[in-house]
C-alpha cells in the first residue's frame, strides 16, 4: 500500500508538534527578565461591551474522527485543548524571534547565572469550574511531569533540577546547567492543569480528560466524533476577551472535503495544503479569501553519514549543487514552500541570522550549479561511467526514502531525482507508508531520507536538532533527531555554549559557526522551506495573522499559538 491516498500532504503538522515535543530543544534568549503587565495578547482594541459574538469554523484535516480526548500531556491530544482551554505561563512568539508575552505568569526573571528562573504567578485567574487558580497548580503540573515521564513531552525534566514554590505566588525553577533556550519549552510549551482535578486521577498517563477544565478563553462545550465545539469562557481572566463566541472544529477524514468547505466559505480558518490555491480557493472569492504561508523550518535530504560513499563530503556537496531548489519548490510544492539554502537558515523568517558573507564564499549557499557539482565530483576522483559517477567501481546510486502519503513530497523528490540524474547521480525514490518511513528515518535504515525537523522559535532549534550528537543514536536505534548521525564534539560544544548564554552577540557567533559547518561539511541538505499552512476569510471576521502582523503562528496545529489567534479574532458583521 503505502500510498495512503495521499491525503494531507501534511508537511509536519502533527508530527511536527510531536517531534518538537520530543526534541530536547533549547530556547532563544528570552531577553533576560521580562516583566509585563497583565493582559497579554488581547487584540482588537477595547473589548466590546456587548459580549462575544460570531462563529469561526476551522478547516484542518487530521485524517481521523475525533476521539474527544483532551489530555494536554498526550501527544495525540495536546493540540485540541492546549491554547483555547489550557494555557501556558508565558507566550513566546516563535515567528517574532521569541518575543515573550506574560500569560499565566505575570512576570519572570533569570538569576543565578541563568540557572534559576522565577515566575510570578498571576492572581485573579479562575479555572473554568470556578475554583481559583494559583501557583499551587503550576507546582503540581511540573511535579506531575516529573512523576510521570511519559507526560513530559518536552523533556522539561531533562534540564530541570527542581521546581519549588516561594511564598504564595512564586514558582522557582532550578536548572542543572544554564539552559536559557529551554525557556520556550518550560514557559510556552508546558500546559498548566488544575491540581484539584488531576490529583484525583489514578493514572494521568491514560487519563482521557473528556471534559477539560482549564484557565483558557474557551470552554470545550460539545464534542462528537465529527465536531468539537468551543464556546467563549465568560469568566476569562483577560478583560473583554475573547471576542468570538463559538469555535467549530470539524473532523475531516480526507483533504477534499476540508478544502471544499474552505472554498464554499463554510470554514473560515484553514490550515490546509491546497493545490493550485489561487484557482481553487482565492478565485472563488478573491475579495475575502487570503492565504499566507510562513516558512518555519527546512525540508531536507538527510544523507546517512555511515554510508561510505555519502561520508565523502564531495558527494554531499555535489548533491547540494545539483538540485534546482527553485524548481522543486515550483513543481513539488506549487511554489508555496520557498527554496531553502544550504546554511539552513529559514528566510525570510529568520533572515537576521543569515550570514550572507559566509554564504557568498560557498557559491551563494550552494545555489543551483550543475557544473560545479560535476567539477566537485571530478576533483574528488570520481569518473563518469555510463552516465553515472563512480569511484573504485562503486557508483553513486542511492535510494531515497520518502513519505508516500505526502503527495507534494513525492512530487518534490521526483524533481530531485531528475536533477541529480542530470549530473550523473542516480537516485531511486522509495515511497513508504507514514509509519514505515518514520521508523526507518528514526532508526537510520536508509541511504538518503527526505524529512523535516520541527525547528522552533529561531534557527538554533533546528540546528540543534540536526547537529547535536546526543540527539542521535546508533543505526538500528531510534534517534529523536539528527537522523543523519552527525558527530562532532566541537559542534556539541558550540551548541552548549549557545544554551548557556543570554548574550545576543554570542548567540550570533555560534549560529555563524554552525552555518559554516552546514556550508563546508554539508551534513544535511535543505531543499525547501516548510511553511505553516494558513488560509483565512475576512468577510465576517477580523484580527487575523497577516503578513505585516505575525503575532502568532497561524496554523491550527500549533499549540498554544492557535489559542492566541482565537483571542484576536472578532466578528465584524
Amino acid at each position, binding site marked *: *500500500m503505502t500510498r*495512503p*491516498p495521499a*491525503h494531507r500532504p501534511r508537511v509536519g503538522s502533527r508530527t511536527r508538534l510531536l517531534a518538537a515535543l520530543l526534541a530536547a530543544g533549547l530556547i532563544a534568549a528570552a531577553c533576560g527578565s521580562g516583566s509585563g503587565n497583565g493582559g497579554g495578547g488581547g487584540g482588537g482594541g477595547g473589548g466590546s461591551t456587548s459580549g462575544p459574538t460570531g462563529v469561526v*469554523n476551522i478547516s484542518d484535516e487530521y*485524517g*481521523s*474522527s*475525533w*476521539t474527544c*480526548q483532551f489530555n494536554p500531556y*498526550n*501527544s*495525540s491530544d495536546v493540540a485540541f485543548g492546549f491554547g483555547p482551554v489550557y494555557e501556558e505561563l508565558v507566550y513566546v512568539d516563535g515567528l517574532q524571534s521569541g518575543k515573550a508575552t506574560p500569560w499565566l505568569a505575570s512576570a519572570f526573571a533569570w538569576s543565578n547565572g541563568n540557572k534559576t528562573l522565577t515566575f510570578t504567578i498571576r492572581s485573579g485567574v479562575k479555572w473554568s469550574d470556578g475554583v481559583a487558580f494559583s501557583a499551587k497548580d503550576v507546582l503540581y503540573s511540573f511535579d506531575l511531569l516529573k512523576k510521570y515521564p*511519559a507526560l513530559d513531552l518536552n523533556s522539561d525534566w531533562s534540564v530541570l533540577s527542581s521546581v519549588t514554590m516561594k511564598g504564595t505566588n512564586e514558582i522557582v525553577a532550578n536548572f542543572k546547567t544554564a539552559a536559557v533556550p529551554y525557556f520556550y519549552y518550560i514557559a510556552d510549551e508546558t500546559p498548566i492543569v488544575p491540581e484539584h482535578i488531576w490529583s484525583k486521577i489514578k493514572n494521568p*498517563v*491514560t487519563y*482521557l480528560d473528556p471534559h477539560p477544565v482549564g484557565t483558557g478563553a474557551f470552554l470545550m462545550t460539545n464534542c*462528537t*466524533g*465529527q*465536531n468539537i465545539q468551543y464556546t467563549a469562557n465568560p469568566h476569562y481572566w483577560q478583560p473583554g476577551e475573547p471576542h468570538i463566541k463559538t469555535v*467549530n472544529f*470539524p473532523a475531516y*477524514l*480526507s483533504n*477534499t*472535503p476540508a478544502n*471544499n468547505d474552505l472554498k464554499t466559505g*463554510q470554514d473560515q480558518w484553514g490550515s490546509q495544503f491546497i493545490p493550485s490555491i489561487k484557482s481553487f480557493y482565492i478565485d472563488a472569492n478573491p475579495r475575502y479569501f487570503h492565504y499566507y504561508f510562513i516558512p518555519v523550518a527546512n525540508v531536507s535530504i538527510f544523507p546517512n553519514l555511515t554510508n561510505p560513499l555519502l561520508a565523502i563530503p564531495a558527494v554531499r556537496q555535489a548533491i547540494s549543487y545539483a538540485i534546482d531548489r527553485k524548481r522543486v519548490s515550483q513543481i513539488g510544492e506549487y511554489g508555496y514552500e520557498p527554496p531553502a539554502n544550504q546554511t539552513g537558515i529559514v528566510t525570510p523568517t529568520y533572515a537576521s541570522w543569515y550570514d550572507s558573507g559566509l554564504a557568498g564564499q560557498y557559491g551563494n549557499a550552494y545555489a543551483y550549479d550543475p557544473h560545479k557539482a560535476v567539477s566537485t565530483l571530478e576533483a574528488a576522483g570520481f569518473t563518469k561511467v555510463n552516465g553515472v559517477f563512480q569511484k573504485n567501481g562503486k557508483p553513486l546510486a542511492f535510494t531515497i526514502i520518502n513519505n508516500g*502519503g505526502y503527495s507534494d513530497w513525492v512530487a518534490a523528490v521526483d524533481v530531485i531525482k531528475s536533477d541529480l540524474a542530470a549530473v550523473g547521480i542516480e537516485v531511486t525514490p522509495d515511497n513508504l*507508508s*507514514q*509509519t*514505515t518511513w*518514520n*521508523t526507518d528515518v*528514526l532508526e537510520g535504515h536508509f541511504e538518503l531520507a527526505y524529512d523535516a525537523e520541527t525547528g522552533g522559535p529561531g534557527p538554533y532549534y533546528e540546528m540543534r536538532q540536526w547537529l547535536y550528537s546526543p540527539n542521535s543514536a546508533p543505526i538500528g536505534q*531510534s534517534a529523536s533527531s539528527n537522523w543523519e548521525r552527525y558527530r562532532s564534539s566541537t559542534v556539541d560544544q558550540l551548541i552548549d555554549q549557545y544554551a548557556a548564554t543570554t548574550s545576543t552577540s554570542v548567540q550570533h557567533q555560534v549560529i555563524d559557526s554552525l552555518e559554516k559547518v552546514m556550508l563546508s561539511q554539508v551534513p544535511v541538505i535543505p531543499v525547501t522551506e516548510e511553511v505553516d499552512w494558513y488560509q483565512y476569510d475576512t468577510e465576517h471576521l477580523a484580527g487575523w495573522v497577516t503578513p505585516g502582523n505575525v503575532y502568532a503562528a497561524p496554523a491550527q496545529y500549533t499549540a498554544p499559538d492557535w489559542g492566541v489567534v482565537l483571542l484576536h479574532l472578532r466578528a465584524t458583521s
Partner: protein
Amino acid sequence: MRFVLRRLGFFVVTMWAAVSFNFFIPRLMPGNPVLAMEAQHPHLGPQAIHALTILLGGGGHQSLLGQYFQYWGHVLTFNFGISITTSFGTSVNSMVMHALPWTLGLVGVTTVLAFILGTFIGLVSAWRRGSLLDSALPPIFVITSSFPYFWIALLAIYFFSIRLGWLPSSGAYNFLNDTPGATWHYVGDVLQHALLPAVTILITSIGGWILTMRNNVITVLSEDYVRMARAKGLSPWKVMWGYAGKNAILPNLTGFAMSLGFVVSGAILVEYVFNYPGVGYMLLNAVNGLDYPLMQALFLLITVAVLLSVLAADIVTAILDPRTRELG
C-alpha cells in the same frame, strides 16, 4: 434440507477461509507492523500491544498455532479491539456500527431501485424485440456497465456540484448545521447529500440488470411453453407477466440477493469519492492509516454480508425453483 445444510457448510468453510486470510496475510508480509505501531504511538499500553500481536504476528511469545486459536477466539466473541489511527482508542465495533447504516442506506436503496428499474426495462425491451429501445439499449448499457464507478462519480461532482452548485459533493449531512434526529431538516439534508452518490451507483449498475433480464426473457420467450401460451391465445400482457416474466426473473432474483452482498463492497469507491462515511470509506481510510484492527474487522464484515446474501439467495432459489432442491 440437505441443500440448506450443504450451503451452511459452505458458509462455514468460506468464513474460515476469510478469517484465516486475515490471520496469515499480515504474517506473510515483510516488516514488523507491531514495532512500527509502537514507534508511532508510544502511548499504546501493553494490553493494546498484545492485542495487536495476536492480530498481526511478530510477538515471539506464542506459537503460531496458539496465536491462531486466540485470534479465532477474538473473532467469535466479536472482540475486534480498538482503532489505532483512524480514531485512536475508539472501539472498532462502535466505529463499524456507525458506518454501516450509511452504506446500507445508500447502497441498499440504490441497488433495490436499480434492480426494479433494470428488470422492468429489460423485460419491456426484450418483449419489444427489434424496436428502437431494444436495438439501442444493449450496446449502450454494455458500455456503461464497464465504466468505472469512481469516474462517473467524478463527472457527477464536476457537473452538478462544482459547475452548477446544485448538490453537495461530500459527506452524508452537514454536521455544522444539523444534528441527527427525526426532523425534516435533517432528512432533507441527508437526501440531498445522498442524491449524487445514489445516482452514480444507479447509472453504473443498472446496465447489468437490464441486460440480464433482457437476455433471460429472450431465452424464455423461445421456450415451448411460451409458444404454447401464445398459441392458446392468451393476451400478450398475460404471457409476458404470467409466463415469461416469472421465469425470466428467477435468475435475476438470485442475482439480486447475491448483489446485496456486493452492495457493501461495490460501493467502496463511490463512498471514497464522495467522502460518504460508510463502511467502504472507512475501510479505505483504515488502509491508508494502516489501522489494522479496523481494517480486518471491516473486511470480515463485508465477507459475512456477502455470504449471508449468498445463503439467502440459495434458499430463495431453492424455494422458488424445485429443480435446484433436487440437486441437494
